[in-house]
């Protein structure tokens, strides 16, 4: 399957689902800053890999799939949970990319400008995650 964009899922979503994600993301970032202020950057840095997106996304995916199937008169809970499992499988690949992001940021931040270090680290995250996805698709199960 060739990667593509499907905007229909945005039409099915409610405005409050976006608001919840914005609030959760903001709240986690604020908490990380407060923890770093109180306990120092070593402890604060641990929260940079906090799962801020996955819980909300997995729940929304299940809800969308279940609603879609229930409109057709089918109990779609099992399908919704399997769709969330696929999302989790992708998040595992994203997690390995996140680890590479951390390594790149750790090494690059003291040496290069902040923008270059962070953009480079983010690119590395994308390349590693997408390569793992591609590799798994071609050679994995």
């Amino acid at each position, binding site marked *: 399957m060739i990667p593509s964009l499907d905007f229909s*899922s*945005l039409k099915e979503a409610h405005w409050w689902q*976006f608001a919840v*994600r*914005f609030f959760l*993301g*903001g709240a*986690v*970032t604020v908490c*990380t*800053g407060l923890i*770093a*202020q*109180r*306990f*120092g*950057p*070593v*402890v604060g*840095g*641990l*929260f940079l*890999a*906090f*799962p*801020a*997106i*996955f*819980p*909300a*996304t*997995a*729940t929304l995916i*299940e809800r969308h799939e279940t609603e879609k199937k229930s409109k057709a008169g089918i109990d779609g809970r099992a399908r*919704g*949970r*399997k*769709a969330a499992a*696929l999302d*989790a499988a*992708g*998040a*595992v690949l*994203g*997690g*390995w990319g*996140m680890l590479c*992001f*951390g390594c790149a*940021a750790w090494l690059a*931040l003291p*040496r290069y400008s*902040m923008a270059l270090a*962070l953009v480079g*680290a*983010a690119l590395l*995250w994308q390349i590693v*995650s*997408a390569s793992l*996805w591609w590799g798994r698709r071609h050679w994995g199960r």
Partner: protein
Amino acid sequence: MASEVLGKRYAVAVKLARSPALEPAACSGKRLWYPPGMDLLWRFLLGGAMVSLFALIGDVLRPKRLAGIFGGAPSVALATLALTAAKSGPAVASLEARSMILSSLGFVLYVYVAERLLATARWSPLVVSLGGLTIWGLVAATAGVLLMRFAGT
């Protein structure tokens, strides 16, 4: 020469890390300074925007497994590291990124367990994703203890 400069920067960062609070006044040079309330507001807005952006890309991208990689996007890290580097300096942000490497392992374990449990279709994503946070928490706490003990900060 370059290694000497880096060594000095790390020494300052370690000194700051040992202090209970990162005061803006403790940071030299052209560091951003704004009132504490504004700092939190910027963090909230930037963090919320980054998480929403990555989640939105994950919503519209297909296939689903590829979209899932955005569930592991470093959204909080990008927002936090940018603000920390601007406010307290790149060496302090670098220390935060070093801790992130270990807690990323916790993230990978957390989503792997979530994938296995969700694939059985017996557990709801809400229960799995919230209950599984204890896995991430345990790995992050262990990493924190190890870093404090052996990394000298």
